[in-house]
């Protein structure tokens, strides 16, 4: 295509030559990203589906085609369903705590007259930038049976004997959710602040003139106007909750007895850790679980996306058309 353009460009005007040259350059600029994308993204995505139809230890050729047997086995596995349930608890828990808590903090920090806003914002944002795997290890020590947290509670006479935060199946899931929410709250806070700052000041002023107090303004002005961005923030939080691997792996490694094993840790255990998998590496089985996790993520995005910001997508399309029109001029 590029060649034919070159040969015909001889007998066209200068402007057209320039346009053709630009087109060629556009493809040259795009080429690295496209090549990298096909090799390291598209190919792995396709193969992750292909592997799921095979029984495969990861070594040797892919020749044991078993159709949907991996899926069948997954859907009848108690351990798989448990991991799905833990993931759902984690996703909902971190969204509720992380997004809800962040909204309260953002409303406080959005106050125009509040001093040292930037300082507080940095403090509450700090956990976001830290390495999750390292945080998991530190928290594992803090919430350990003889860890700092138990010592603190004993010192203040809140409890008599240490609580097994990470070795009790229910408590471990709760601690996981609390730490996950703490880690992600800062990013949600910044999202909410962006939303709050897009509300024009005049609306607050006129609410004040109408004699509306803090709560009335919050209920009738702030919250309704935050609705569109709320949908985006909740969706982002739900989707990021699906990737709990770094934290779970380092905090509890799925224990006690798989009680905190999330879906992504389940997949990792079958694919790369024969000990915590079924005693052998099963990459096909793990891939099938990966496909189910992918479809699960897709379903959340679609259901939530379509329900809450279908309108925005239409708006966005309108904007893009406008932009294109300006450029054509």
């Amino acid at each position, binding site marked *: 295509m590029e060649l034919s353009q070159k040969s015909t460009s001889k007998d066209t005007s200068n402007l057209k030559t320039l*346009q053709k*040259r*630009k*087109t060629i*350059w556009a493809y040259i*600029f*795009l080429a690295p*990203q496209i090549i990298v*994308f096909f090799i*390291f*993204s598209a*190919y*792995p*995505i396709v*193969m*992750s589906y292909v*592997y799921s139809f095979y029984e495969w230890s*990861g070594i040797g050729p892919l020749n044991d085609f078993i159709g949907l047997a991996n899926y069948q086995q997954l859907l009848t596995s108690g351990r798989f369903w448990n991991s799905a349930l833990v993931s759902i608890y984690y996703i909902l828990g971190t969204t509720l705590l992380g997004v809800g808590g962040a909204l309260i903090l953002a409303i*406080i920090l959005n*106050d125009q007259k509040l001093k040292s806003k930037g300082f*507080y914002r*940095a*403090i*509450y*944002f*700090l*956990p976001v*930038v*830290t*390495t999750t*795997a*390292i945080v998991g290890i*530190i928290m*594992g*020590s*803090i919430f350990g049976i003889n860890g*700092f947290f138990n*010592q603190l509670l004993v010192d203040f006479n809140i409890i008599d004997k240490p609580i097994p935060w990470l070795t009790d199946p229910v408590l471990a899931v709760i601690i996981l959710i609390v730490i996950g929410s*703490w880690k992600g709250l800062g*990013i949600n806070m910044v*999202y909410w602040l*962006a939303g709050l700052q897009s509300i024009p000041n005049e609306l*607050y002023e006129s609410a004040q003139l109408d004699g509306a107090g*803090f709560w009335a303004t919050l209920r009738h002005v702030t919250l309704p106007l935050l609705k569109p961005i709320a949908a*985006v*923030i909740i969706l982002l939080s739900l989707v990021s909750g699906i990737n709990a*691997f*770094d934290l779970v*792996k*380092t905090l509890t490694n799925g224990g006690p007895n798989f009680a905190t094993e999330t879906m992504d840790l389940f*997949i*990792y255990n079958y*694919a*790369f850790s024969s000990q915590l998998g079924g005693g052998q590496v099963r990459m096909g089985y*793990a*891939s099938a679980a*990966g*496909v189910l*996790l*992918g479809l699960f993520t897709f379903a959340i995005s679609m259901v939530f996306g379509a329900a809450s910001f279908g309108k925005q997508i239409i708006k966005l399309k309108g904007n893009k058309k406008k932009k294109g029109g300006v450029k054509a001029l």
Partner: protein
Amino acid sequence: MITTKSARVMIHVFLLLFGIVWIYPFVWMVFSSLKTNKEFLTSGTKLIPEDFQWQNYSEAWITANFSGYFWNTVIFTVSTVIIVIVLSSLTGYALGRIDFPGKKTIMICVVAIMFIPKGYTIIPLFKLVNAMGLDNSILGIIVAESSGAHVLFILMFASFFANLPKSIEEAAEIDGAGVLTIFTKVMLPLSMPIVATTAIMQFIWTWSSFLVPLVLTISKPELRTLAVGMENFVQTYAVDFSGMAAGATISLLPVMIIFIIMQRYFIEGVAGAVKS
């Protein structure tokens, strides 16, 4: 919104106290790294160590090989950041600034990528890196980490370049500059704010990356990054608590310092992401 003075003071007290609790795990980490192991176990909730055990750091750095993990992480992170900036600025420029046939299709593909259900791509990626013979070098992890389409950064660059006035390249074109010259000499320097945001965000993500280096260094301990090395350290030396805290501090401090210095770019980038 809140007017009374006492309410104001209350808010500051709350924000400050809660803020201390919020970052206390990191404060605890730093001071624990300066205790002896015995003191770590027996000092209870006391924060400040009797004597500052600075040698914990030299032990972690040399004996536990955190120096190796540290430099691996630096090479891994810096290379990934550079590759991502090159790929997304080039793609963003083509999509945002140049009109060419097929642009719309590519644009739709870029957005669609976000919504494709990806399976567990680390398995094929692991196989691919091994098949390419990159499994014995840090290049394998770099390639795996920086691959893929960085949709957010591409869109950031595209909208930045699209909104620059047309006169900029018209002037350069009259001077006879080609597309590549205009891009490298004029456009890229103009887009420094986007480059900075991309660099900082990608730096923090890659520094914290865990699954990719974990899987790709399974049989190559000498290629481990800080996060992976740390996980291995805890499994090997389960009772060296202050060593653990020292290693964790070495791992987290660089990224925290960069965040504190550059927080404006980072927070603006994140906020910009949700707005678009």
